């Protein structure tokens, strides 16, 4: 049960495997914003959808970008995928999401307790920072650690029905399964077409 799951007893899972499980649950053209680095590399490798946005810079802004999409398109659910280091850089966005009580927004945070792409230096979650406690403190009442793969699937399923929700996942230090093509204009244009904004 999620309520009893903590950062200490949550199963350590794999980001790419869970990204695929998440994408498999998306049946209503949900938008997905992949945060900087391995987070969006694995999203890319999980199968390119026109409703995916791959963030190539601006570390920490996956959740704000997702919030903007969610405000613009209230009938579409939006998922932000973010890493622990990135969220620690922009924690204030959790308070903004909670303040707006944005119902069509889900935040998934992959926590491997390292800045993996820069050489695996430890993040503050390797010490005492707890991202679910931080989210709850910011006012995100529906914030949970995923106990295992089945629990992750259940949390995602529930999150896609209402929000805002934050799902934190302990992950291993496996590198991403691929690399995103780095063409910001093409990514943005494809995404806008995927959202029906551009013909």
């Amino acid at each position, binding site marked *: 049960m999620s309520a009893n799951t903590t950062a200490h007893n949550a199963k350590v899972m794999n980001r790419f495997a869970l990204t695929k499980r998440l994408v498999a649950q998306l049946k209503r053209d949900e*938008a997905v*914003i992949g945060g900087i680095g391995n987070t969006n590399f694995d999203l890319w490798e999980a199968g390119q959808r026109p409703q995916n*946005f791959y*963030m*190539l*810079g*601006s570390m*920490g*802004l*996956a*959740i*704000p*970008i*997702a*919030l*903007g*999409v*969610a*405000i*613009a*398109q209230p009938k*579409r659910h939006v998922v932000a995928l973010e890493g622990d280091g990135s969220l620690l850089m*922009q924690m*204030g*966005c959790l*308070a*903004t999401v909670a*303040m*707006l009580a944005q119902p069509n927004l889900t935040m998934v945070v992959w926590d491997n307790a390292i800045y993996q792409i820069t050489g695996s230096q430890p993040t503050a979650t390797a010490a005492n920072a707890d991202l679910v406690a931080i989210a709850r403190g910011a006012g995100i009442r529906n914030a949970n650690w995923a106990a295992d793969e089945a629990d992750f699937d259940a949390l995602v399923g529930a999150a896609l029905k209402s929000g805002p929700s934050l799902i934190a996942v302990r992950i291993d230090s496996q590198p991403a399964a691929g690399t995103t093509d780095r063409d*910001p*204009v093409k*990514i*943005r244009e494809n*995404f*806008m077409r995927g*959202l*029906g*904004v551009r013909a």
Partner: protein
Amino acid sequence: MAQASWFDIIREALKRNEVKLITYVPDRVFTPLIKALHADSYFTTFTTTREEEAVGILSGAWMGGLRGAMLMQTSGFATIPNALASLALPSQIPLLMFVSERGTLGEFNLGQAMVCRTMRPVLDALAIEHHTITRIDELHFIVDRSIKQAVAIQQPICFILSPLLTGGKVFEA
């Protein structure tokens, strides 16, 4: 008939251009504009915790089909160059920025004066078009035309509202 105030002119220019989403990090000088936007149900107006966050929110909203603008102080602008250089500019997003200019024409805080020196060089280094607005008779023309241009060419634009226009923040010794 009384002349329209600077904040009413900006509000009308935003409406005319269907700019509906407004984020801000508060500023004393911008208070009447912020109040006017909050009071008008045409706009969705809220605070962000940092200016960088606003760059993300407005970029997402633009991609989702909703136009927005961000309000900030000179010192707030100094926190966003990375988000401009790595998100708004390479993705070609027409980010609309309004800066309440501190640090000049009677500044009393040395930190504000020093950070103000970085603003235009940063905008110029990133080749972001910017206008320093000092006269109320030019305000609507500059804002209205520049929003249209930003959207048409998919490039950010920055409006710097001088104390000559807004009155600025006055040092009361």
